[in-house]
């Protein structure tokens, strides 16, 4: 039998097979698999595997140093999410929005992972990787040539002064002839500094000052971002609770409608740069309407002599002309302030110009008239944080403002946040100065540097948390490293000791970060004051903490030490209302009368100021924070603020 195959047979076989295939599981399986393939696309990232652990640290991006609890995965443990530490006596569990994405910043595109040379080109700023020895040698050369060319051959600007690491740096600098340690002004503390310089006598607060947030009934804020984490984000829940209870009223005096102004009980818009006039106007009403409490008025040295005359021109209608605040509003505000305990806060808002010394001076006078330095005042003194002394000499610590212009030959900037605007820093440098940045990121002040020797980033470095600005009591915490830093980063202490070696200076052996911090722990235990907080537990007295090792252990596990309050003065100290020198008085009068010309700042580089008090911005922005601005209407941009057109003059 012959098998003949026709086209028809082939056709039928093919059609039959196709029909059969449809009835088989094959096409359905293919469909199912294709559905799975769409889920496992090349875009689906791998996630970490391993045990989930909880570790504690602190965010050291800004001086607030919020405690955080990290959820870590795997071995070595990598943090995947961060949150605040509930019940913490300083932060009250708060963390600013940037803090939640802190662990993303270790791999930010602007992260510097090793020493580099920085060059400014047309398209932007570039960092070219270099060997550490090369960079250190170049910096040493610069210092050597600066010895003949500049008054200050080497200055280290410490953006977070007061740490044990700062002391260690000073000890290293002592071995380098001509080297000094420079500290920037603290933005929030500027109001307190102004108050301190007016107080006289031992009875007046000599130590650091802070605010007792439970005291004031009315807070008049001259642009201070109180609802955005002024001092530390932990102040916000305290203030919000009091406001909701009706025991606190916030009046925000600010040119721009900031988030704090939106939440304030009243927003009084003013022309930018006229804060001094407003403060003096309020003082005028207090003085002329006899609203100053007698016991407070008695203690003023110059109230009835020079101050009354000085403040006479600043009557409400004149202030209205200068600043735009209605005279009636000013008068009623002054009366309200006089009725209960009130507080005036300056310090300005991040992302804009800080308030100048004249404005702070006027605000300080206002606070003194309200009796804030007295026994019932909202401004309280606190103990200094116990600080062990280091053996050997330390380099001089010089405030930035006291440096002569054009005097610094080589400037090393230790820190990431731009707490000082660059122009202020630049004015202190010689024309051919070399700037070295120790910041982990190529942002902020490091954009102006020629060399970068990046230190480990927050979460990579053992660090400490000092009391935030404006704190009513001292406190201390630890920031433990959660991830290993890139190999080629080096701590500022290491850099300075290698620089000292390159300069042929004899540098004392440095003790290591942990040793130094344990010494501070010992100092705290020796002081015998305060309480220790542990997560999930109650406060315990320092005596029960188990000695300095016990204290250190507890702080490594998310704890914190909080000091006892300093007993307040029994009577108000004597004080001056006007600044000490004639020049300052004249300057105050001029600024108040004419207003200060304010740069409508280039705020484009500035970061959303949540919790960034003291940091006007310019740390790298986590991408998630940019998402908040781009993908929601909550913030249209990190810098945009809404202004009241009527009060804005052309700058």
């Amino acid at each position, binding site marked *: 039998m012959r098998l003949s195959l026709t086209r028809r047979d082939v056709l039928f076989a093919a059609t039959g097979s196709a029909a059969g295939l449809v009835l088989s599981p094959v096409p359905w399986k293919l469909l199912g698999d294709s559905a799975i393939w769409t889920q496992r696309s090349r*875009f689906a990232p791998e*996630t*970490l595997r391993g045990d989930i652990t909880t570790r504690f640290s602190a965010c050291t991006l800004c001086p607030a140093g919020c405690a955080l609890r990290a959820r870590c995965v795997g071995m070595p443990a990598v943090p995947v*999410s961060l949150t605040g530490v509930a019940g913490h006596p300083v932060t009250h569990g708060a963390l600013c929005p940037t803090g939640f994405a802190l662990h993303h910043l270790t791999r930010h595109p602007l992260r510097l992972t090793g020493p580099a040379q920085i060059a400014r080109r047309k398209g932007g700023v570039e960092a070219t990787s270099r060997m550490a020895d090369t960079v250190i040698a170049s910096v040493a050369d610069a210092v050597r040539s600066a010895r003949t060319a500049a008054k200050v051959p080497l200055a280290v600007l410490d953006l977070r002064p007061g740490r044990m690491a700062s002391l260690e740096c000073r000890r290293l600098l002592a071995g380098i002839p001509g080297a000094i340690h420079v500290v920037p002004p603290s933005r929030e503390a500027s109001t307190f500094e102004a108050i301190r310089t007016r107080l006289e006598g031992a009875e007046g607060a000599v130590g650091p000052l802070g605010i007792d947030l439970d005291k004031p009934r009315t807070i008049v804020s001259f642009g201070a971002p109180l609802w955005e984490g002024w001092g530390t984000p932990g102040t916000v829940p305290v203030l919000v609770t009091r406001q909701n209870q009706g025991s606190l009223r916030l009046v925000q005096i600010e040119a721009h409608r900031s988030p704090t102004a939106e*939440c304030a009980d009243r927003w009084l818009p003013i022309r930018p740069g006229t804060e001094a006039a407003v403060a003096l106007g309020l003082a005028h009403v207090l003085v002329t309407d006899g609203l100053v409490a007698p016991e407070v008025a008695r203690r003023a040295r110059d109230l009835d002599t020079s101050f009354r005359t000085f403040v006479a021109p600043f009557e409400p209608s004149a202030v209205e002309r200068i600043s735009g605040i209605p005279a009636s509003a000013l008068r009623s505000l002054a009366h309200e302030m006089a009725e209960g305990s009130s507080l005036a806060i300056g310090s300005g808002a991040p992302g804009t110009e800080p308030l100048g010394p004249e404005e702070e001076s006027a605000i300080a006078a206002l606070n003194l008239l309200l009796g804030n330095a007295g026994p019932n005042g909202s401004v309280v003194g606190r103990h200094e944080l116990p600080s062990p002394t280091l053996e050997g000499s330390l380099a001089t610590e010089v405030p930035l403002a006291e440096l002569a212009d054009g005097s610094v030959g080589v400037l090393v900037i230790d820190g990431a946040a731009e707490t000082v605007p660059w122009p202020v820093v630049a004015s202190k440098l010689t024309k051919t100065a070399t700037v070295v940045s120790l910041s982990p990121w190529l942002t902020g002040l490091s954009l102006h540097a020629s060399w970068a020797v990046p230190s480990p980033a927050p979460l990579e470095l053992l660090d400490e948390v000092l009391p935030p600005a404006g704190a009513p009591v001292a406190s201390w915490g630890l920031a433990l490293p959660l991830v290993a830093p890139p190999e080629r980063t080096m701590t500022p202490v290491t850099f300075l000791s290698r620089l000292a070696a390159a300069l042929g200076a004899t540098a004392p052996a440095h003790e290591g970060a942990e040793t130094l911090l344990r010494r501070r722990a010992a100092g705290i235990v020796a002081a015998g004051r305060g309480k220790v907080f542990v997560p999930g537990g109650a406060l315990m007295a320092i005596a029960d903490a188990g000695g300095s090792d016990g204290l250190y252990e507890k702080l490594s596990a998310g704890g914190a030490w909080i000091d006892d309050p300093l007993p307040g003065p029994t009577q108000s100290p004597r004080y001056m209302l006007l600044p000490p020198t004639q020049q300052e008085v004249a300057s105050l009068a001029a600024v108040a009368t004419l207003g200060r010309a304010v740069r409508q700042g280039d705020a484009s580089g500035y970061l959303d100021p*949540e919790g960034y008090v003291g940091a006007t911005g310019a740390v790298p922005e986590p991408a998630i924070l*940019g*998402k908040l601005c781009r993908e929601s209407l*909550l913030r249209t941009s990190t810098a945009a603020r809404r202004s*009241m057109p009527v009060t804005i003059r052309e700058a």
Partner: protein
Amino acid sequence: MQSAKKPLDGKTHRYGMVIDLDRCTGCGACMVACAVENNVPPGDPAANERTGISWLRIYRMNDGQPLPETRTAFVPVPCQQCGAKAPCVSVCPQNAVEVDRSSGIVGQIPVRCLGCRYCMAACPYHARSFNWWDPVWPAGMKESLNPDVSTRTRGVVEKCNFCFHRLQAARAKAAAAGSREESPGDYLPACVEACPTSAFLFGDLDDPTSDVAKAAEGKGTFRLLEKLGTDPKVIYRSARPWVRQMADGALPRNGKEEHRG
């Protein structure tokens, strides 16, 4: 999503929140914490507030007075976790949306989602987001994604699910300790944990001893779009009359909430 039609212990919960609008400062920490917890990436550079993904969105509400007397309130709006008649549940052609009876949480199954976006059209709270782009996680986020939350592809809808993975973790923890009931303090969504001013209260609305149930019965509470009958489990409160009036026409809660799912 493994949801028990009838949970092992027979007890159901109705997890909900009370958001105190007088405490919200509009800082956005909750939005950031939510995105980090749930692996929600920043969008394409061309993404904006209408095409980006936000499981929790804070709205700014002004009372309409001219500046500077304008009063502002901030309203966080997550998925309102509507009741049994959630508008998005009945409309999904693939049964990819379900109200979990054991917890009351409205769950979305992204791996089953076809991307037809009918649920998005049906939701009056605009709580749902669509993946218009392939997700791209930035450096730093890519290496530290939350392993408990699966990532989504483009073309699917996603929304807040009250951090259901945390509920599963709490249940696992309870099971490991030999208990059939998760401990209330063990389960908190990321936004609740993150809020610096503790504006969120979270818990089982059906548990009369819980703080959230007590707050939900308190004065000044209201729900958004009450009259639509969605029966949401997100309850707002404010002592300020203008906030209540603006947000929902000063309507008191009608008390007719379903006590199942």
